[in-house]
């Protein structure tokens, strides 16, 4: 914060107040609004999850008036978590980080950036409003397969499903515009010297994510408009006898499988920034990581039908093989991360702990996913709680732990204040324990044959695991409280962060915290993927010996010389 005094023009340009936030086109403010908006939807989606877990804690129907309301609860839980929390939260982290990391003053299209953001709360309101319609919200699951999602007395007669479709089209359009913005920003706005192979991994993962978004999201838009036409104008796309329900599944998963990588690649990018900084080492295998990311992006388009093995309508050997194949680049990344930690000078700050949470939990999610890639095992486990366990180990164990690593890592940059380490660790322990208590038992339930998406169950063998999962769910719920308290007290009187509290490698640490509206008064020379590291140790890193240079302590940067020149110094 103190560094602001050095750039008075920056402060004057930053009008305060609500009006400024509502009309801003500054990628940093938009990024923060993305994060806040997504976090609110995380809380809403979390409440729905707790309702679901409460209902399932013991057999019978207790909490909900009937099964239909239960169906609404899990449908909206998943829709909110995927489309209004994980995807936009990661887009928000990227929105803040990417222009800073490549040394740009803003995104390529700042007004389109604001438009992308504002579509999200609008979509969220539509989704929330659908509870007030006759027949209630969408109850057809987040995938909304026809014929369940078609109009019909026994399926989805009310306008709730239509609102769901419109909300998703809005959110999808927001994603597409955001993806285009990221790509143009990354290709066109890099600072001099920032070649593609000097970009931070976070920027690379956002690049590949954006390609997936631009190529895949319009495809689900097409599925949704066809579903809308079926429901409202007598169309015959997906409803037998003339229409084909499997057609919807193909088009839906053509988006929704790449969407899985949209939801995890940026989180991989976050921990690829966090692990090197807290190991005091460069990322092990920078280029291999990039090629693995591109490989995941490319293969991601050829595995969609592994969600449809049991339909009997897809070529099983091909999709099974491709699914196993995609584990290879993912495995490469595990080696990148583990060998970055190996013999590093580890500092167990909260961001690193969450990153390690990602590593371990995502590994489990990868392994149980590989089981499901085997056709015979998938036939046995399709639509059981095994699938629920798998998807939460990747999306919660992976994406959510990754994004919390990012929040703890960049909070000092966003606000100029450090989050409290002690509360951060309490948050991690509660969330880690609660997460595993909730989702590990679901493996057992799945193997025992408990189907997903049911409000009640009769097999007594499932009682214990379900109760355990529900207890775990509430521990996850409680774990959010120390985090919220942490944010609250840290904003008020947290430790002042300075420009570069962690001893970072990438350009966002070369400006003040928070950065001025135009981001940089001046940039360090960019000669590698770690320009700020080079600036700190220039004569060592480029002494001609090559090889990675081990660093001593981040304390060296406490004073923040990076932007200690006034704006007058810029050329």
């Amino acid at each position, binding site marked *: 914060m103190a560094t602001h005094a050095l750039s008075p023009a920056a402060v004057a340009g930053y009008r305060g107040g609500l009006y400024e936030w509502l009309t801003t086109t500054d990628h940093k403010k938009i990024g923060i609004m993305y994060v806040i908006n997504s976090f609110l939807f995380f809380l809403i989606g979390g409440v729905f999850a707790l309702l679901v877990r409460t209902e399932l804690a013991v057999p019978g129907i207790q909490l909900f008036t009937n099964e239909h309301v239960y169906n609404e609860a899990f449908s909206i839980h998943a829709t909110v978590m995927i489309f209004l929390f994980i995807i936009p939260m990661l887009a928000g982290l990227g929105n803040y980080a990417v222009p800073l990391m490549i*040394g*740009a*003053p803003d995104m*390529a*299209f700042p007004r389109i950036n604001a438009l992308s953001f504002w579509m999200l709360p609008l979509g969220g309101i539509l989704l929330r409003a659908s509870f007030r319609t006759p027949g209630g919200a969408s109850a057809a699951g987040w995938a909304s397969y026809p014929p369940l999602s078609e109009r019909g007395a026994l399926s989805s007669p009310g306008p709730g499903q239509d609102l769901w479709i419109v909300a998703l089209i809005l959110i999808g359009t927001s994603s*597409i515009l955001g*993806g*285009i913005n990221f*790509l*143009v920003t990354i*290709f*066109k*706005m890099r*600072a*001099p*010297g920032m070649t593609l192979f000097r970009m931070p991994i976070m920027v690379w993962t956002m690049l590949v994510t954006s390609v997936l978004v*631009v*190529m*895949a*999201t*319009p*495809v689900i*838009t*097409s*599925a949704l*408009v*066809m579903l809308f*036409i079926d429901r409202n*104008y*007598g*169309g*015959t*796309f997906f409803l037998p006898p003339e*229409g*084909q329900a499997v*057609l919807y599944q*193909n*088009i839906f998963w*053509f988006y929704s499988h790449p969407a899985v990588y949209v939801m995890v690649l940026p989180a991989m990018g976050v921990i690829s920034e966090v692990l090197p900084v807290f190991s005091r080492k460069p990322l092990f295998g920078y280029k291999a990581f990039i090629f693995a990311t591109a490989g995941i992006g490319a293969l991601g388009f050829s595995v969609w039908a592994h969600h449809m093995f049991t339909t009997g309508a897809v070529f099983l050997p091909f999709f099974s093989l491709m699914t196993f194949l995609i584990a290879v680049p993912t495995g490469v990344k595990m080696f990148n991360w583990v060998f970055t930690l190996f013999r590093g000078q580890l500092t167990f700050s909260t961001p690193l702990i969450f990153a390690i949470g990602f590593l371990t939990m995502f590994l489990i999610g990868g392994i149980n996913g590989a089981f499901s890639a085997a056709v015979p095992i998938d036939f046995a486990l399709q639509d059981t709680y095994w699938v629920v366990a798998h998807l939460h180990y990747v999306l919660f164990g992976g994406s959510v732990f990754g994004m919390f690593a990012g929040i703890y890592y960049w909070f000092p940059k966003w606000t100029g204040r450090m989050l409290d380490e002690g509360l951060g660790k309490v948050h991690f322990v509660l969330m880690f324990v609660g997460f595993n208590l909730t989702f590990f038992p679901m493996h057992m339930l799945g193997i025992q044959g408990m189907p997903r998406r049911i409000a009640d169950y009769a097999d007594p063998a499932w009682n214990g695991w379900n109760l355990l999962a529900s207890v775990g769910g509430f521990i996850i719920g409680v774990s959010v409280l120390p985090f919220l308290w942490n944010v609250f007290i840290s904003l008020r009187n947290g430790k002042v962060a300075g420009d570069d509290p962690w001893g970072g490698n990438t350009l966002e640490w*070369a400006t003040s915290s928070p950065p001025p509206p*135009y981001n*940089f008064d*001046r*940039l*360090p*020379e960019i000669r590698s993927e770690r320009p700020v590291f*080079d*600036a*700190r*140790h*220039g*004569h*060592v890193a480029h002494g001609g010996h090559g090889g990675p240079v081990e660093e001593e302590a981040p304390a*060296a940067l406490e004073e923040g*010389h*990076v932007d200690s*020149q006034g704006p007058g*110094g*810029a*050329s």
Partner: protein
Amino acid sequence: MTADAPALTATAVGHAAAGGHAQRGISNPILGMILFITSEVMFFSGLFAAYFATRAANQPWPPKVFGGILDPLGLIIVATIILITSSFTCQFAVWSIRRGDRRGFIRNISVTFVLGIIFLVLQAYDYTLLFGEGMTLGSGPFGTTYFTLTGFHGAHVFGGVLMLGVLLYRGMSGQFSARHHDAVEAVSLYWHFVDVVWILLFSILYLL
């Protein structure tokens, strides 16, 4: 070791210079439009995939009631020729403004704009004829796919016409020159894309 100020300030980069305007190569709006068109291609791919899947599952195609209803030599060939012509006039407009010929630009973009509107009018009239023969969105897979595909294409033509209108307005107020006409290049790409989609649609719906 900590205060290596010279290394930090070696490359002082001003606000504008980092903005990409100094860089060579494709401009931001044009790249943005190419990516947007990419996403549109994927959107239409979804619709085309649904069309072929539906057609394969519903033989004979067209169904007997609608046999011969889509006559490639009827009104639609006129609309098709008009839209293809408009792509040429659009490109003439681009070449005009690249030369700095503002009057030629305004003339060509006006013609394109009018041709786009004529296409929409013809398509709307063609729709009324089809409705008259009982073919609608809800009259089975043949009508559903036809009106969905041509309808979304028509919506894109409408969007393109709006963009052309903006170009025309900006052109008449003298906002474009040989050096500054990224919007013209971007809109022309979009207009060509809309044209290509129509050629595909015409081939598939009327000829195939």
